[in-house]
């Protein structure tokens, strides 16, 4: 690695970086910010996923569709939405001034609050979807059993539902944490002077100062620190096997504690379980059901408002972005859809994202199965290796990949880009799938094998079906990881494989191009259309099945 110097080996760069107190300050505050964002996301996503789980199948689909919409809008564009919403002349401030609550505009933007808000908005889906996939697999009969054994609803929830869904929460939270450390566009746009992150400083070393040695050292420090945190978390939270102990201590202690609480509660309260047969799944009653729905609606509102702001902007006639638009036109849609330098990159992005998502999900599934089932330390090491791309700033990965790709002549090709996106997608996929596999019952698969099925067939017919929601979530995020990537694509894509994010990035270097609002709107519509089509196809398929049967 470059961190040991260009000519010969030296620790000088390590000494320089290690002795810089300023860097350590930023280092700590970066982790604190990521931790804050992770906790907020987890605290919102868990009740949300639970509330959505209890909705009817149709509402569930609608909510999932709405949750997906923000993911199609680029980080840059979303940051601008926040300015429109929260700025001094923004919608929120105008409303507050209008009602007369505040005498002058509140300074909401350009500070820690705005950065946290922007990051939470970006990252909630990253914990929600893995978590929801795990919850959906949850067997309602377990709660019924707990109820029939006398557990009250809260105890049943704490002792049965929570422990079984925790792996989903933890794997999602880890993804959020890793992203929280790595994102630097949002802090740069929405933050004030103090919201500098470690990754921003690394980027500065690479791009402004030409000091790649320092950048490499900083990246290594970041990698090691993150790796330690992640492995400690993963082990203690039971995401991976912890050596000889199959059930890790802290997790076991947690469960024991819950049990104790349950017993005490049962003794003290001695209230007979009011849960009838019907209320088992809805074991927290009507009032909290309403609360859950309200919570879901509020969260969706939070997630979707910045996206809906873009819709009027995309129909503006003004040659520059201005909210609210004074005249209306379709000119930005015309620009987007009629210019090959916009449509070409869109197709390139879709192609690359589809292929890399397919490949990385397959690879990641194999890896996740290996890691969750192998008790050896080697598996942990392998996991650390697979996750490490998420802990190194993307810019460093981009430079490193560029050297590799150049050596084998893949730089500037779609194939090169697909391979590069495998590297970025793998950590998310592996984490989501580990969360999904962790509590999947292996017995059906063993049964299948003992009945003579081949390992692959046994897996595909049992475990695969069980964890399908997690696989779909993993594939989706792999697709988006590729479809959203600017940093790596700027290096690898060259002139023949320009992707949409690269095109968008270059079009905002000097001016905020309103075409971006149109692009976002088209992508959101496209995603809705694709999902509705697949839904329709499914329904038609089911009809055909039942008519044949």
């Amino acid at each position, binding site marked *: 690695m470059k961190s040991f110097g260009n000519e010969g080996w030296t620790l000088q760069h390590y000494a320089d970086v290690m002795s810089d107190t*300023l860097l350590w*300050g930023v280092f700590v505050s970066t982790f604190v910010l990521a931790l804050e964002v992770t906790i907020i996301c987890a605290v919102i996503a868990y009740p949300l996923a639970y509330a959505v789980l209890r909705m009817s199948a149709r509402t569930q689909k609608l909510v999932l569709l709405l949750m997906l919409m923000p993911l199609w809008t680029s980080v840059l564009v979303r940051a601008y939405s926040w*300015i429109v919403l929260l*700025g*001094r*002349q923004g919608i929120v401030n105008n409303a507050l001034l209008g009602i007369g609550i505040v005498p002058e505009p509140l*300074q909401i*933007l*350009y500070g820690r609050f705005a950065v946290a808000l922007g990051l939470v908005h970006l990252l909630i889906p990253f914990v929600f979807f893995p978590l929801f996939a795990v919850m959906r697999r949850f067997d309602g009969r377990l709660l019924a059993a707990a109820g029939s054994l006398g557990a009250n609803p809260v105890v049943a929830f704490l002792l049965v539902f929570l422990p079984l869904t925790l792996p989903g929460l933890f794997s999602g939270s880890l993804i959020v944490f890793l992203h929280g450390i790595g994102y630097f566009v949002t802090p*740069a*746009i929405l933050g*004030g*002077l*103090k919201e*500098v992150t470690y990754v921003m*400083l690394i980027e*500065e070393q690479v*791009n*402004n*100062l*030409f000091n*790649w040695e320092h950048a490499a050292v900083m990246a290594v420090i970041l990698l090691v620190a993150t790796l330690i945190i992640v492995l400690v978390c993963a082990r203690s939270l039971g995401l991976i096997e912890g050596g000889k102990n199959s059930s890790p201590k802290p997790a076991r202690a947690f469960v024991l504690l819950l049990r104790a609480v349950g017993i005490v509660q049962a003794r003290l309260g001695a209230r007979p379980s009011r849960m009838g047969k019907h209320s088992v799944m809805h074991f927290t009653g009507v009032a909290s059901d309403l609360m859950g729905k309200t919570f879901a609606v509020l969260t969706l509102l939070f997630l979707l408002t910045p996206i809906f702001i873009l819709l009027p902007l995309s129909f503006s006639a*003004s*040659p*520059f*972005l*201005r909210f609210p638009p004074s005249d209306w036109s379709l000119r930005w849609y015309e620009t987007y859809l009629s210019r*090959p330098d916009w449509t*070409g990159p869109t*197709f*390139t992005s*879709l*192609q690359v994202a589809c292929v890399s998502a397919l490949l990385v999900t397959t690879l990641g599934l194999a890896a996740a199965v290996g890691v969750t089932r192998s008790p050896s330390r080697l598996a942990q090491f392998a996991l650390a290796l697979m996750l490490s791309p998420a802990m190194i700033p993307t*810019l460093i990965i981009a*430079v490193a990949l*560029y*050297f590799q790709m*150049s*050596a084998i002549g893949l*730089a500037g090709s779609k194939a090169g880009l697909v391979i590069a996106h495998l590297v970025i997608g793998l950590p998310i996929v592996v984490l989501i799938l580990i969360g999904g596999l962790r509590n999947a019952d292996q017995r059906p698969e063993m049964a299948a094998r003992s009945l003579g099925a081949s390992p692959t067939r046994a897996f595909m017919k049992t475990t695969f079906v069980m964890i399908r929601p997690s696989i779909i979530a993993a594939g989706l995020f792999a697709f988006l990881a590729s479809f959203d990537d600017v940093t790596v694509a*700027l*290096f690898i894509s*060259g*002139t*023949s494989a*320009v992707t949409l994010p*690269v095109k968008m*990035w*270059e*079009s*905002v*270097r*000097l*001016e905020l*191009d309103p075409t971006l609002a149109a692009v976002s709107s088209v992508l959101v519509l496209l995603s809705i259309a*694709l999902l509705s089509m*697949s839904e329709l*196809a499914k329904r*038609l*398929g089911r009809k055909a099945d039942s008519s044949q049967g």
Partner: protein
Amino acid sequence: MSDRSLTRRGVIGAFGAMALAQPSSVSAQSNERIVVASYGGRMQDSQRAAYFEPFAKETGIAVTDATGITLAKIRAMVASKNVEWDVFLATHEELVSLAEAGLLEKIDYGQLSKATMGEIDPRLVHEYGVGSQYYASVIAYNTRKYSKDNHPKSWSDVWNATKFPGPRILPAGSYQLRPIEPALLADGVPAEKLYPLDLERAYASLSKIRPNVIKWVSSGNAAPQALVDGEADIAIANHGRIAQLRDEGAPVDYVWDGAVVTGSFWAIPKGAKNYKNSLKFIEFASRADRQVDFATRMPYGPSNMKASEALPAKLVRDNPVAAENRSKVIFMDAHSWALKTGGKSVLERNIEMWNRWIRT
């Protein structure tokens, strides 16, 4: 099950069809081709019309355009011996530090037309690059807040929040357009004594305006957009973008007083594959007629002095080096920024000081 996998195949098939429909970006007319990298957006659209397409037409050498210029990418290309670009745009400071790092080819002026090169402003003729255009960091303001008669006209006005109240947007010290020269001028340093830069004094001056600055930006689009949105009333911004917005009816304007002018350069990365044709392109893009054409599309100043003189009257006011503006502006001294003391350039020391200053 079989139905579902059919649908899946259908979706993949559809993407395949889209892939086939994608237009090829390489023109097949000629075997000769160069790759020119620029900044994207309207800048690149204008360059395509004024330079790339006419060049291909006249010489038969096709131009593929690329974007994504960063110092990291250039260094990676040269170091990996996979130089994708033939010509790219660099700022003056980038040119100096790239040349110092040995990442550029020297410009062989012997192969370029003496007449055309003689028309280029000597400030923008460099051993490793030829100036393409002038641009400037200017005092820009929101015209709904400040009228034509009453608006900040000097850096000390920008620093004077009692006389000119309202939030400011300034560039971050780590961004390409640094607030250092403005901070020194606002503090009373005379223009002719600006260089060598007194960074300590500059940061002391920045501390004075700091409470009135709502955002220190590190991208080109943010300051102009903030003026349009009314987020800020006064800003340091790229003059070309403000001029464009003003012409399109946005409530913004700028002044030339105290503007910090600098140039962009065409440069050739070390080991570029088409050196000769790259030089041909640079010569073509240096011609007065081409530069006038470019200036009509993008309000930047020509590097070619003849082009500068030949600009239509309505373009003169946005030309940093027009006779009427030239006396009001300051030319940024890129070499002074690159000057090393104690092993560190002013540029590097500035970023260190900036990173410390923001945490005070």
